[in-house]
């Protein structure tokens, strides 16, 4: 009679490998490759908008072959391959490689976290590790920043990830302020009204949250006004530079002046001050 179990358990050659174990080996390998393919497709999709194409493909391949190798290692015992020697050798090699590539792996993991957490994006104006500029590229191992002077700076991702990141454009709007001094004899209410009118006319000085202009303190040389203005985060600098001069000009047109530093000097004895015109002197 035809006995299937006997055939499946029949040893093939001298290594004690049966058809069963061969089938198991193939099955584990096929399942492993399928999982690797599935995971790599999803990794590719997830990184579609986050990574440049070459780095995305590299990472996808790493994931694919990583899972496939794990599947192969899981399947090899079915062929009576003793992995203990391989594991010992692999372990030692792993420790050596691990020490050698510690910073690379650390940067890689930090890069992945940066891509998923997304505290910064390409084009954002940021400050990280005392470097201020706009983000040119976020790569797997490093982040490239172009400073406002146009200088290229590459920062390892680990440093970016573990540093305090200030992203100036992460929010849609941001506030900036001015301190403007006027003379004591000037009308502060009029100055506030003029400043508010100028701000109101600027398209990108946001209507809401509304700007705020108020007398902040009475200084040594004049009355100090503080101006708070909200602007779109990506346009705040041009609003800031544009408005200050417009406010200054509007003040001047209305007879309000920015005070010079001044000191009142008292003499214990009255002194004569002789005023002579320039014509007389000639």
């Amino acid at each position, binding site marked *: 009679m035809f006995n299937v179990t006997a055939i499946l358990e029949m040893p093939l050659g001298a290594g004690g490998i049966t058809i069963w174990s061969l089938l198991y080996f193939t099955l584990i390998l096929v399942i492993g490759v399928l999982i690797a393919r599935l995971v790599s497709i999803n990794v590719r999709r997830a990184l579609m908008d986050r990574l440049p194409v070459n780095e995305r493909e590299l990472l996808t391949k790493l994931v694919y072959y990583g899972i496939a190798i794990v599947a192969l290692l899981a399947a090899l015992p079915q062929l009576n391959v003793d992995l203990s020697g391989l594991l010992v050798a692999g372990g030692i090699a792993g420790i050596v490689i691990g020490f050698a590539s510690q910073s690379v792996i650390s940067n890689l993991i930090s890069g992945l976290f940066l891509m998923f957490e997304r505290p910064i994006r390409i084009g954002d104006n940021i400050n990280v590790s005392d470097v201020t500029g706009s983000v040119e590229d976020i790569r797997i191992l490093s982040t490239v920043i172009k400073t406002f002077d146009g200088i290229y700076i590459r920062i390892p991702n680990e440093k970016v990830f573990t540093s305090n990141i200030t992203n100036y454009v992460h*929010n*849609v*709007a*941001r506030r900036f302020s001015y301190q403007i001094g006027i003379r004591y004899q000037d009308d502060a209410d009029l100055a506030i009204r003029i400043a508010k009118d100028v701000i*109101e*006319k600027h*398209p*990108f000085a*946001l*209507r*809401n*949250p509304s700007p705020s202009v108020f007398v902040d303190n009475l200084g040594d040389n004049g009355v100090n006004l503080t101006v708070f203005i*909200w602007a*779109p985060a*990506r*346009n705040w600098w041009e609003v800031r530079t544009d408005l200050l001069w417009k406010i200054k000009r509007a003040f001047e047109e209305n007879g309000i002046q920015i005070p010079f530093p001044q000191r009142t000097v008292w003499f214990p004895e009255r002194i004569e001050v002789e005023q002579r015109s320039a014509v007389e002197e000639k």
Partner: protein
Amino acid sequence: MFGRYRGTFRSESGEILIEVEEGDGLLTYRRRCGEDKFERILVTRMAEVIINPVEPVNLPKDITNFLMIEFPPLMIEPGVSSTVYLKFPVEFGVFVESARDIEVADIFAPTTQKYTLYGTPTRGLIARWYGSEVYSEIPEVDLYREGVMEFTITNTYREWVEVSRVVFESVDMKIYYGDFVASTATMRILGPNLAETDFIDAPPRPGMVKSIELYTARKISALNRGYLMEWGLS
């Protein structure tokens, strides 16, 4: 001034002048709007220039797709639907068209602009702001400065709701022109701070001409999905 022009032309209305002149075998597009001037040389066999109102979110530069209209507060009864009229700002779009392609040549407006934040600085959005009264009938408007929006509000919420602002995604905006510039929009109130807004592709009066949209001319594909106002209605 709105319409389609072929070859050289000159169109002037108040402070706005638009012309295409020929000189030295070249066509020159020239525009003046108040103090603001713009000029382009058109390298073409026979330029076809189209001037029509466009989505009013492009000036002084393109920073958002959203338009907010603020108006005196309206209290709306549960289950009630009502149509009122609002005013919105007009921006001129000038397009150059050939047999194969259409392109935006110029955008300008005789009015000033103002922007605002809708929502919070962290999660909100920047929108072009415009203030309007609420009208029960189509109001008188300056054709080149303001348009009329036929605005239908429906309160599907179970309580009275106060509304004093509406935010639209301009990608969905359909503009028509004739004696006046017009658009038709809806607002469906879903909760005290939640509403859906959208535009309807139909003029408030028959016989009006449909404007070429900037998004069509710029070949930007966009889904008409309306906008969900999540950060309050007043």
